[in-house]
C-alpha cells in the first residue's frame, strides 16, 4: 500500500496541493462509458477533497505508458486510468515510479505495491437486466448491441442472454456487435434494425453508439424502449430508457481517491459485483414510467433474481460455453 500524503488537500497555504493525473483510454472523454464516468468521479472528488487534476487523452494503446509517465513527470502524485488494456502499461510505469500510486479500473493488476486495481462483474448486472427484459418484453424479442468483440463485452452479453432466458425461455435475444464504440449513426441503424425485427427493448453496451440506440427508440415509437449502461444514461433519453446495467465507476473512483488521500488505500485487486456495489441494475428515476411497463410483481421478481445472484444461488455464465450449459 502507498504512503498517504497529507490529506488537507492544500487548503492551508504552505502545504503542497495534491495532484491527480487522469489518463483516458483511446475512447477518450465523451465515450459515454468508462472515461466519462471516471471523470465525473474525479470531478466530484476534486470538488469535495480539493486537489488539482491533470488530464491526458490517449490516442493509442502504445501511448498509455508514456502518458502515465507524463502526468507523473508533471507533478501528479496519483494517476487514474480506466480500461482493460491499461494493465501492461500500469505495471511498467508503477515499477518505474515506486513512490507514486496508480488507481487502475478494469485493468487487472496484482502484486504491484503501488497499484490499486478495481475490477467489476459486469455480467451480474447484465444478467439481472436480462431477466428484467425477459419479463417486460411484449414481443418476446429483445435486442442487444455490443461494441467490439472482447472478453468483457462477451461476458456482459452472455450474462444478459442468460438472464433473459431464465425469465423468458421461449423468447429470443438478437445480439449484434457494432464493430465500433464510437459511431453513433451505426448504433442507431442497428437499433432500428432490431426494432424492425420485433425487438421492443434494445440493450446497449457499445460506448458512444448507445446514443444512437436511444435516438432510435424514440423514432421507433410507442412500445419500444431502450436499456442503458454506464451510469444509467437516463438523461440521454428520459422517456425511453427504462432500466440500465450500471457500473458505478464514478463511485469507485471517488472512493478510491478518498481512500488514497486519507492514506487507506491498499494495493491489489478488488472485484466488485452487485454485492459490493460495483455494478447493479438501475431503474429510470421516473417510477411512473417504469411502472407503465413493469408491474410491481415484475420488479419484485427481478429483485428476487438479483438477490439470488448476490448470494451465489445463480452462477452467472461468463463464456459462450458457460452460457450454453446454463441454458440447458
Amino acid at each position, binding site marked *: 500500500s502507498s504512503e498517504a500524503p497529507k490529506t488537507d488537500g492544500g487548503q492551508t497555504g504552505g502545504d503542497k496541493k495534491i495532484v491527480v493525473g487522469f489518463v483516458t483510454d483511446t475512447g477518450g472523454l465523451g465515450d459515454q462509458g468508462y472515461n466519462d464516468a471516471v471523470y465525473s468521479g474525479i470531478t466530484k472528488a476534486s470538488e469535495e477533497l480539493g486537489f488539482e487534476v*491533470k*488530464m491526458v*487523452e490517449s490516442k493509442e*494503446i502504445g501511448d498509455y505508458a508514456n502518458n502515465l*509517465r507524463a502526468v507523473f*513527470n*508533471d507533478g501528479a502524485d496519483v494517476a487514474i486510468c480506466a480500461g*482493460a*488494456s491499461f494493465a501492461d502499461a500500469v505495471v511498467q510505469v508503477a515499477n518505474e515510479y515506486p513512490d507514486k500510486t496508480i488507481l487502475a479500473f478494469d485493468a487487472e493488476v496484482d502484486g504491484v505495491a503501488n497499484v490499486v486495481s478495481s475490477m467489476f462483474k459486469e455480467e451480474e448486472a447484465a444478467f439481472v437486466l436480462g431477466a428484467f427484459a425477459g419479463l417486460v418484453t411484449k414481443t418476446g424479442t429483445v435486442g442487444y448491441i455490443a461494441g467490439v468483440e472482447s*472478453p468483457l463485452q462477451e461476458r456482459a452479453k452472455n450474462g444478459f442472454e442468460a438472464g433473459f432466458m431464465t425469465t423468458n425461455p421461449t423468447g429470443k435475444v438478437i445480439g449484434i456487435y457494432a464493430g465500433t464504440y464510437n459511431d453513433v449513426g451505426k448504433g442507431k441503424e442497428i437499433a432500428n434494425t432490431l426494432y424492425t425485427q420485433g425487438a421492443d427493448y434494445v440493450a446497449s453496451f457499445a460506448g458512444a453508439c448507445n446514443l444512437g440506440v436511444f435516438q432510435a427508440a424514440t423514432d421507433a415509437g410507442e412500445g419500444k424502449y431502450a436499456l442503458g449502461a454506464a451510469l444509467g444514461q437516463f438523461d440521454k433519453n428520459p422517456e425511453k430508457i427504462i432500466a440500465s446495467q450500471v457500473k458505478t465507476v464514478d463511485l469507485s473512483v471517488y472512493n478510491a481517491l478518498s481512500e488514497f488521500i486519507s492514506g487507506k488505500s491498499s494495493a491489489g485487486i478488488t472485484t466488485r459485483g452487485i454485492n459490493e456495489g460495483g455494478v447493479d441494475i438501475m431503474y429510470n428515476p421516473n417510477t411512473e414510467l417504469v411502472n407503465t411497463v413493469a408491474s410491481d410483481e415484475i420488479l419484485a421478481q427481478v429483485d428476487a433474481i438479483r438477490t439470488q445472484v448476490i448470494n451465489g444461488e445463480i452462477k452467472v455464465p461468463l463464456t459462450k460455453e458457460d452460457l450454453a450449459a446454463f441454458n440447458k
Partner: protein
Amino acid sequence: MDKIKKTCSELKMPLIAIAFAFVFGSLLILSTGKNPIEAYSALFRGAFGSPAAISQTLNKAIPLIFTGLSVSIAYQCKSLNIGGEGQLVFGAFGASLVGVYLKGLPMLVHLPLAILAGFIFGGLWAVIPGLLKIKKDVNTVISTIMMNYVAFSVVSFLINTYFKADKSDFVAMNWVETTARIPFIQNGGLRICIGIIFAIIAAIILRILLQKTVLGYEIKAVGGNQNASNSNGISSKKNILISLIISGGLAGLAGAMDILGNSGKLYDGYNPGYGFDGIPIALLAKGNPVGVILTALLFSVLRTGAVTMQTSVGVSRTIVDAMQGVIILFIAAEYIFTIYKKARLNRTKMIEEKKLEGAQ
C-alpha cells in the same frame, strides 16, 4: 555550398507554413482564454524539455518515419498507398508472431527475424492491391482503403482466436520474447529506442535505392511516364508491384518497430493511425526520404508536446491536430510559389537556348 543554399531555400516555405500554423493555433488557444505563449512553451518543454521528453519525441517519430517512407516510395511510382494502416497492422502481426512464438533464439537472430517478418507481412498485404492494379487496373486508392478494413478484421480475428494470450482480460497476443524486443539506449532520463537508428538507416537506404540504383531509376521512370518505360523495356507492371511491396513492407516495419520496440505486445484493435499519418508526412516531404525524417520529427514534436500542453496548461490536443492540417494546407498552397519559380527558371533556360541558337 550550393547544396546548403538549396536546402535553405527548400526549407523556407515549410518554415513559413509552420509559423502560420502557430499563429493560427494561438488564435484557437486565445479563444479558449488561455495564453498561447504559455501553451507553446509547454509544448516545447514537452517535446524537448528533458531527456525523457527528447526520448519520447524521437521514439514517437520511429513509426512515422517508416510510414512516411512507405507512402513516398509508392508515390515515386505514382500510386497513392492509403493502405499503410492495414499493412502496418499486418506487419505488426507478423513481427509479433515471430517475436512470440519463436523461442530460445539469441537476440542477434531473433530480432532481425521478427523485423523481417514485419516487412514481409506488410509487403504481402500490399501484394493484393498491387496485383489488382497491374492485372485489372484497379485504382490503388480504392483497393488499399478496402484492404485496411479487411486487415483490421482479419488480424483482430486471429488475435481473438488462434493467437490469443494465455491469460488476459483484454484481448492481445502474448508478450514478445525479450530476445525480439528492440533495445533502448538508457542513460539517466534518456530512453531512446534503437528503432530510430533503424528508421534513419531505412531512409538512407531508400534514398540510395532511389538515387543510385537501377531499381530506383526504373521506379521513378515508371512514375514519370509509364508508356515510355514500357516502350524502353522497363516493365511498368513489375515496378508498380515492386514499389507497392516495398511500400507495404515499410509500413509493416512501422508496425514491427511499434510492437517490438514500444509496446511489446500486439493488442486487439491495434490501429494507431500511423499509416494514415504517413500520407501527409510523405507528401510534405515531397517524397524525399531525408525530408521524411524531418517532417516525421515535426509531427512527433507536435504530438509529444501536445501531451504536456494538455497536462500543464489544459490546452486540448485537438489544437495540434488542426495545426497539422494548417501546415499541410500552407505547404500545398506553396506550390503557387514554386511553380512560379520553376516557370521563371525554364524561361531563363529558354532564353539561354535562344542565345545559343542566335549565335549560330
